[in-house]
């Protein structure tokens, strides 16, 4: 019989509410117009992150929802209200005000499993946090899209020295590195399970 660990320092610890799948019908509730337009329209520093979400058969998932969170370009992590800014007359989403940087994006994938996020480069960290929801996924998954080669951010070699990435074998690490396609455009696919050809994305837990 093991001894009970001391709980003298433990704070009140309520048991958490269990996760359940987002299901197939979130589409009229959670996505909102402009959810992927985190950067103010026309901002010259805008970067595009896009990719496809795949299942373990290598088939695009048509009913996934991705959320993104990141610090502002100046490194602020305070965020700002207004991601779902509404017209008080009709209740319709009118989009971010173009001034405050909310740091939050939400995009439902298209029927072909593809998503697209337009944002500004994160300040102070070389990654954008990604949270994946899907029908069939009973508990959301966190991952990160690391962005090589941004101004003021590490290049590929520098990124690979980042503690989380450095601790991963190269074939696993590669799943967290967004691929620069052309200037300011990055591809970041998400694979919920290996399909026999492609590696499964590294997913994260925060303890």
């Amino acid at each position, binding site marked *: 019989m093991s001894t009970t660990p001391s709980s003298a*320092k433990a*704070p*009140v*610890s*309520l*048991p*958490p*509410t*269990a*996760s*359940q*799948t*987002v299901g197939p*019908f*979130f*589409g*009229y*509730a*959670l996505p909102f117009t402009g959810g992927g337009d985190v950067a103010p329209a026309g901002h010259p520093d805008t970067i595009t992150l896009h990719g496809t979400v795949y*299942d*373990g*058969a290598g*088939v695009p*998932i048509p009913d996934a929802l991705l959320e993104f*969170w990141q*610090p502002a370009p100046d490194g602020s992590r*305070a965020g*700002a*209200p*207004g*991601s*779902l*800014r*509404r017209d*008080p007359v009709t*209740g319709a989403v009118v989009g971010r005000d173009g001034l405050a940087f909310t*740091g939050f994006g939400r995009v439902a994938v298209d029927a072909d499993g593809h998503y697209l996020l337009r944002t500004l480069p994160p300040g102070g*960290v070389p*990654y954008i*946090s990604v*949270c994946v929801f899907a029908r*069939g*996924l*009973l*508990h*959301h*998954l*966190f991952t990160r899209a690391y962005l090589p080669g941004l101004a003021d951010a590490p290049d590929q070699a520098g990124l690979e020295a980042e*503690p*989380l990435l450095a601790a991963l074998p190269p074939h696993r690490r590669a799943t967290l590195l967004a691929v620069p396609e052309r200037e300011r455009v990055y591809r970041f696919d998400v694979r*919920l*399970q*290996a399909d026999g050809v492609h590696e*499964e*994305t*590294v*997913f*994260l*837990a*925060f303890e």
Partner: protein
Amino acid sequence: MTNPPGTPPQPPGVETQETISAEIAEIRGAYGKAVADGAPRRAHPDRDYPPYRSSLLRHPKHALVVPRDPEAAELTGPVFGVTDVTAIDHDLTRQHIGEPLGERILVTGRVLDRAGRPVRDQLVEIWQANASGRYAHQRDQHPAPLDPNFTGVGRCLTDDDGRYSFVTIKPGPYPWRNHDNAWRPAHIHFSLFGTAFAQRLVTQMYFPGDPLFDLDPIMQAVTDDSARRRLVADYDHDLSTPEWSLGYRWDIVLDGPAATWMEEGR
């Protein structure tokens, strides 16, 4: 469980409720034995839960990686405010010209972190089927009526006590195609944010006494009995309003990294 007389024959390969129920029982038994042998209780469902067939190709097989980084961006998170929610968004019975059909209900409770502190001024979003069990979604084409006076989407911000409140109608159970004669117990989908992105939660609230609980592989994916019970709201007569609505209470506790809820970490 056999189909009632007169129902059309099922195509070959469609599995029966008995098959699914047997798998549910086997996994639950194995979990109970593991806990009795000293394994920790698990509040969340395993992402790999074969009775829910859609999970088979949609769960990672590698263990999750824990970033040991006190500066992780996920320890902060998005904020919302009065510009993101209108004053009637919490009342799903007032979104159309007429009143929706069904049993009017109030659903309220508190959003807390694991230290029991209220999560204040944070966004709560819900969506649900109508009283007939039909979603206002093009992909739900099962033969139950749509209600022109009910969409089934609501949102609100929590108050200083972490309290949220919605007026809606009680959703109906709805059929799905996980297996033959599969029906989901009535539920309301909830989406919640804490003070950290790592506290994010999407879940489902159920109604007490639903006979479909034991048959449903999504609810049963929460193999821990007490964790599963916590997904069921309490009927609270004090929340009912005479000749108007019935009241349900459901509190939510957001999980998350220790740094977001340990007193020492603040």
